[in-house]
């Protein structure tokens, strides 16, 4: 298997606080990876660095072992094939569910192309396909603002899928979901993995167990442990960080 994403010796501090401290991490193509860690472990900053929102002070971030991600901006990383889901569900509230997906479809993103764009039958079919996958096909004409919290989470995942990214960065997808919804989300992410690479940041241990994948534990901006969930849960240091205080 080839490497999708690699971080090597990445550092980033904010006003003297080391948010990311010599972080090295490798994710393979098609892998499903969970990243856990207490508050302030640097999970969100790590995602900001991967997507070009934040530039690291030093270190290397490589996409497909060739493209330097420290030089792209958010739109650039999205065009390379990195999709990101925010912790707080962020959808376009004054657009319909259908338009939310339509606007996310992989397409020419230039101003002129967008001005003269016409929806093709192929795109219509793709929209329906995605809506079915995230179980929102009955709500396609509703405004996104009128959806429930859980439905918004799903819509945002649908928007990510519509982008057809190589890598999905998913920040706490289960937050605010019911148990049934949480399990369905885990199932969906497992299904997506394989064709796509998926990195999930999560707090909820039940959810991580349901993902049944390799786990990376982050602490103070550094990788503390890596392996199966059972392996890392048995790690002394991890227990101390999570339970010790």
């Amino acid at each position, binding site marked *: 298997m080839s490497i999708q994403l690699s971080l090597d010796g990445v550092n980033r501090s904010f006003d003297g606080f080391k948010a990311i401290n010599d972080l090295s991490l490798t994710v393979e193509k098609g892998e499903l990876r969970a990243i856990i860690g207490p508050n302030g472990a640097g999970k969100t900053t790590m995602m900001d660095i991967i*997507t070009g929102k934040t530039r690291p002070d030093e270190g290397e971030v490589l996409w497909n072992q060739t493209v330097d991600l420290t030089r792209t*901006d*958010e*739109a650039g990383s*999205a*065009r390379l094939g990195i*999709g*990101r889901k*925010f912790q707080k569900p*962020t*959808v*376009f*509230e*004054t*657009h319909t569910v259908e*338009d939310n997906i*339509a*606007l*996310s479809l992989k397409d020419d*993103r*230039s*101003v002129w192309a*967008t*001005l*003269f*764009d016409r929806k093709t039958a192929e795109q219509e079919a793709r929209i329906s396909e995605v809506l079915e996958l995230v179980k929102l096909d009955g709500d396609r004409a509703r405004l996104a603002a009128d959806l429930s919290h859980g439905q918004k989470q799903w819509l945002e995942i649908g*928007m990510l899928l519509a*982008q057809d990214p190589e890598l999905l960065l998913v920040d706490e997808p289960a937050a605010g979901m019911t148990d049934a919804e949480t399990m369905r989300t885990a199932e969906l992410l497992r299904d997506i993995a394989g064709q796509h690479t998926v990195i999930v940041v999560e707090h909820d241990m039940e959810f991580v167990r349901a993902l049944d994948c390799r786990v990376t534990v982050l602490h103070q901006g550094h990788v503390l442990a890596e392996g199966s969930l059972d392996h890392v849960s048995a790690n002394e240091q991890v227990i101390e960080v999570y339970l010790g205080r």
Partner: protein
Amino acid sequence: MGLIDRRMGIFLTGLFILTVAVPAGNLWMEGQPVPSYIVSLLGKYLCYALLAVALDLVWGFTGILSLGHGAFFALGGYAMGMHLMREIGDRGVYANPELPDFMVFLNYQELPWFWYGFDQFWFACLMVLLVPGALAFVFGWFAFRSRVTGVYLSIITQAMTYALMLAFFRNEMGFGGNNGLTDFKDVLGFDLQSDSTRAGLFVLSAIALAGGLLLARAITTSKLGQVLVCIRDAEDRTRFLGYRVEGYKLFVWVVSAMMAGVAGALYTPQVGIINPGEFSPANSIEIVIWVALGGRGTLVGAAIGAIIVAAAKTLLTGWFPEIWLFALGALFIFVTIFMPKGVLGVIEGALAKRPKPQPDGKEAEV
């Protein structure tokens, strides 16, 4: 979501009737039921309406609150005013065929380089679009690239128009200082004082407003228009979907500035003067009030808001000149608190409630 929806259809029909009735009543009907000053006054309102549509494009749809849109309007007005000055020729007080009166008065020996070409009408028309467009492009390029948003952007747009006002007040700038440009005689050989020319300018203003509305509508109903709303509602999400937000903002900002420039160019000959007061920050703030009052993000509402406020200003400053600013302030507060969707929102809300009650009550939610 066609180009002409119900509200646009109604407004354009009304505008068309006005465009036929006003000149007819002024030029051809017995006893002149529409006095000449009313024609120019209404023409001025239509220019304001076009300016409001331009602001609605950036504020209502893209979320960029510009407090400096009067600057683009004034620049368009100055570009047209420069042509009208050149067209006076040797009929000025000093009868200098080359130099406008104010330059002779200020002892200019020759025409400044930036006045070259303005003797040609087509060149002036080009500048009406290019000068506001270029300023908007340069300003937007730096502001949007540096990701200046929200209130910070509003403040620098305000600073921009204030700086231009101070600059245009200076005699050394070569734009007539605080007197501005005035005493126009004719345009393309048509006497600006004659009723038929005034009626012609009124019709042109109506056509420009209709054109501006349709252009804005075409933009906002396209996929690009949807992206603009995305930027307004969730800028970060839009970026992470791969849209270069700054490019989209720059596009709509420049289009809007050019539209404002056209409004200014039609305003100058109808009012007969353009001076640095048009750059004053208070003017730009008033434009925001028009749009808020009419209904943000509705285009037609913005045009209606401009006409309502401008008409109220004409009446109130005539009757009680000293209370106008208080009335304007009170109006703004009233609209923000009680009519967040503006006049158009209130009218459409009332209309939506009346016809056959929907069993699912969906209409009532709006």
